[in-house]
């Protein structure tokens, strides 16, 4: 005996159930990135945070070279701005020293501000450029600023999203059954 079809209101209570959805099969076709791709640091200018703009061969068929290089160059610019040693960093350093570094309890450091800008930028790039091509970029801060990793969007969904969906679907199915009985 099958339970009654779910109403629209109940449907919206489940996480991530939208009216617009894709078939999982469609995603699987576009998932050819078996492993993650890691973009390493570029140390030619010293220990400043800079990533290699060399285009990895695994991404040949997945994304245009210029788009990828633009993303990495933009990230490098952000990190260069954060680590710039100039007037502002001196003022920040001296002020902090005079206040015994208690000033950082109240205000954010310049680096932290730029990191927030970077995470917004990465999110925007994922939405506009990478997710439509079935890819996801992770913020380098999650990897200790060692690598920028690119992973398949399908793999991300498969590993994280689907089990949660199945769990919640089973949860709601039980509740519906108990309501009927």
């Amino acid at each position: 005996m099958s339970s009654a079809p779910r109403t629209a209101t109940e449907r919206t209570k489940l996480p991530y159930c939208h009216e617009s959805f894709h078939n999982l099969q469609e995603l699987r076709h576009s998932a050819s990135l078996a492993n993650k791709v890691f973009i390493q640091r570029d140390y030619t200018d010293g220990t400043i945070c800079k990533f290699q703009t060399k285009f990895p061969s695994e991404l040949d068929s997945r994304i245009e070279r210029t788009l990828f290089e633009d993303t990495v160059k933009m990230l490098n610019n952000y990190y260069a701005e954060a680590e710039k040693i100039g007037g502002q960093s001196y003022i920040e350093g001296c002020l902090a020293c005079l206040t015994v570094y208690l000033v950082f309890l109240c205000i954010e450091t310049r680096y932290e501000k730029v990191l927030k800008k970077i995470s917004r930028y990465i999110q925007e790039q994922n939405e506009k450029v990478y997710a439509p091509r079935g890819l996801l970029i992770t913020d380098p801060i999650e990897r200790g600023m060692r690598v920028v990793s690119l992973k398949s969007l399908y793999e991300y969904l498969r590993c994280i999203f689907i089990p949660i969906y199945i769990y919640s679907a089973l949860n709601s199915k039980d509740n519906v059954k108990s309501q009927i009985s």
Partner: protein
Amino acid sequence: MSAVMITRKVTRKWEKLPGKNTFCCDGRVMMGRQKGVFYLTLFLIVGTCSLFFAFECPYLAVHLSPAIPVFAVLLFVFVMAMLLRTSFSDPGVLPRALPEEANFIEMEIEAANGNVMAGQRPPPRIKNVQINNQIVKLKYCYTCKIFRPPRASHCSICDNCVDRFDHHCPWVGNCVGKRNYRYFYLFTLSLSLLTIYIFAFNIVHVVLRSVDSGFVNTIKETPGTVLEVLVCFFTLWSVVGLTGFHTYLISLNQTTNEDIKGSWSGKNRVQNPYSHKNIIKNCCEVLCGPTYPSVLDRRGVMLEDLSSPTPSDASAASTHKSSNPVSQTTKSSAPLIPNEHTPDEAKPGIGAGTQKSTSSPKEEKPPSPTSPNAVAPAVIKESSH
């Protein structure tokens, strides 16, 4: 149906970090393992200053100037702040490579080495990079499974790779690295000043009092002075020497580790590629450079790996059948998944996993609700029941 709220203690990432660090205040404080010498440092500084404030300051404030104890207090506060800042902060620990990154690096190494004959030793894992037109060798860390960035080194006491590793200081009970080097230097500098200050005013006090009442009586009235002079005398040589040594290192933009190993000295060796060849620039970079953030997420909320099922009380507490394998694997997200009556709590479960910021502690509150939805627009088609 009543809502079943599953409450369990939030596991923060610092509880599961590898390495031999000690954490306090729910991950806010990070220290090395052995803290005995650090307590000794604290005791010596606080003890000596207390004796100074008790015995010398009343006399000197009256007979010389009240500014003397005031300045001593300021200096003492600065020294303590710098000490605690050095001891309690993350020195610049590099997180270990996750399995995927480690495998990727292994594949790269194997590709670079080619076929190794059976019985032969594989070549050492070294990467050559060019920094400012000099070749620098990056070594592979077998514990952390990464190629160490330039100037990073593995501290065997803390069992972590630390960026711009200087040394592990038992007096502060922590490594000294990129993030806390300037606090360490300011600590040694201010401690030298404090030691010289206390020593000098002890002498002045003894002299002034001896003029009035004789030397022996002075010692009887203020016995603390003897102790202070002893401590300050021995501290002076070591701390002032250390400050001088670090001033020299800073002016050359070197670390203690590099100096001990002789990385940049000698005729056949590479010259220091990090030095700006200008003392002022080097000092400014080390002391007035940007304050680097910690890349070790200590206070992030732990979301356990969904592919590795582990026994949990969350799945037992849930109203589900425990035989369901899915509930086992998603046990850590079980409390984050709502039951039918609390749909809003689902979002932090995904949001915390995909988007975490190191600057703010992750509580179980919804972050920007658009983020997981924007990133994962695809949803499985609902199957009809």
